[in-house]
């Protein structure tokens, strides 16, 4: 009897695990299936390099180059702002604070990570965009810059916690030996901890980029949603916002509908590309 119970249990566990793993396959298959319908009409090359997105026009006018660029541009700005601030804070957190402060600080960072993206978008719209409009008299505060700044705030907790964890390990390992030489903490951090942390800083960039490019609501609310070539202070569009906005109005089965799936597919390809590139960079760093 006991044997049977164990066998059943093991089977159930294996089965459920299989389903979980198949989910990923399902996701890829379904997204690809719906995108493929579009790619039969419009070549993927045209889709990715053309500059006009006009769902009401002829199929040749469904291309997303400006939107791809917008997605990348906004995330890039986000990383550029968030990286120095995130790494700097991680250094202070990992090497200059005691256990009690660390616990509090890490909870605070978790809170930042837990704020829903729609709330970020909300604040971004009311504070950032308005700020740009009032202080710098932009005609419209909605811009790549607004999206980038907002994303940088959202990326901070990921960068900080990834770097903090690994920096603390390195600190604990070498601190004793370095201070026995009479050398200052900041020297040790600059000479030992930072170089040793290159891998985790890189990992945090990948993580942050991935989040940034997949971010929908927050970005959608502050970039203006104009599918034109992105300029720092002008409106732009990103793939996730495009999908979120237009999916509701696209007729099921229409070319527009499949084009939106196609852009989701392209987004996944881009993310896959970034992860692969960084995997190889990591490998080369190990040598």
């Amino acid at each position, binding site marked *: 009897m006991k044997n049977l119970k164990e066998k059943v249990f093991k089977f159930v566990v294996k089965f459920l695990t299989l389903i979980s793993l198949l*989910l990923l396959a399902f996701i890829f298959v379904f997204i690809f299936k719906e995108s493929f319908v579009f790619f039969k009409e419009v070549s993927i090359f045209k889709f990715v390099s053309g500059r006009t997105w006009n769902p009401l026009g002829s199929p040749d006018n469904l291309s997303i180059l400006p939107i791809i660029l917008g997605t990348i541009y906004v995330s890039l700005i986000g990383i550029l702002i968030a990286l120095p601030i995130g790494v700097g804070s991680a250094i202070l957190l990992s090497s200059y604070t005691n256990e009690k402060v660390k616990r509090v600080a890490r909870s605070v960072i978790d809170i930042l990570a837990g704020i829903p993206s729609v709330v970020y978008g909300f604040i971004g719209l009311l504070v950032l965009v308005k700020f740009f409009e009032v202080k710098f008299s932009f005609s419209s505060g909605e811009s790549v810059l607004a999206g980038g700044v907002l994303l940088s*705030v959202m990326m901070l907790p990921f960068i900080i916690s990834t770097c903090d964890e690994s920096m603390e390990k390195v600190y604990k390992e070498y601190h004793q030996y370095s201070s026995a030489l009479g050398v200052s903490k900041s020297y040790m951090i600059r000479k030992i901890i930072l170089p040793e942390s290159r891998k985790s800083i890189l990992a945090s960039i990948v993580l942050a980029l991935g989040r940034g490019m997949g971010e929908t609501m927050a970005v959608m609310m502050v970039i203006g949603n104009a599918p034109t070539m992105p300029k720092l202070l002008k409106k732009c569009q990103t793939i996730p916002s495009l999908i979120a906005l237009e999916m509701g109005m696209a007729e099921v089965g229409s070319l527009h509908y499949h084009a939106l799936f196609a852009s989701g597919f392209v987004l996944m390809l881009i993310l896959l590309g970034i992860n692969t590139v960084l995997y190889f960079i990591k490998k080369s760093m190990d040598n």
Partner: protein
Amino acid sequence: MSEKTRDYIFKIWIGISTLVVFAVVLYILGYIFKNGFKSISMEFIFGYPKGIPIGSEGGIFPAIVGSLLLMAIACLFASILAISTAVYTVFYCKSKRIEGFIHLIVQCMAGIPSIVLGLFGYTLLVLYLGLGRSLLSAGITLGIMIFPYIEVRVEKTFGEVDKFVIDSSEALGVSTGYMIFKLILPLCKTDIISAVLLAGGFAMGASAPIILTGAVIFAPIPKSLSSPVMALPFHLYILTGEGISLEKAYGTALVLIIILLLINIIALVLNIKGKEYR
């Protein structure tokens, strides 16, 4: 550049970075609390949206209930799959290659943008399986989103169980399944619950997966799994995007944040209590 100068610049850099981070956190929380406070009232929390356009007056009760229901379904769906996968990987999987493969898949799933999951939920659940825009479709889609989150944490918890405990159990000749049910799960109970709760909080705040799969602008409290549902984040978006009511929007944001903070606090308390038993 002398060592002294380098040291100085370095310290300024890390000091300013940290200040910026904390200023931002304080500002965000302060902003929401200050502005949302005025809109909070019993009527707001327990009333229904009213007015023209709808939502400009009244309350957000259906959205609160909707969000909680969505969270429940997502957590149920995700934890069954995630805990099973974690159990398999830690206790049953003998091949390192398969283990690595599973980790890779889970990581990939974690990297899928939530809007793509929304697309998937839409095409598979809403259309293909005919579930329509419903509580179930949206709940499952959210569940897929939080699955990797729970799996990774539960696996970590299992990994932290003392090797000796497992070895002693094996030495008694007890089957793996028995050990998992009677020993491991009770031991890890609080950590697992806290991970599921936190994941639930994550699900509750997400809008992209539910826009296409079940969230609507206005709906009563869902009577069944197949009814559409209102949700707090989506409601916030509508109130803001359609310019319906800034005041109510602040209130909605505040309610959402408070619920999330409560979830986080409960999870934290569970975490601390759990550590006492180890």
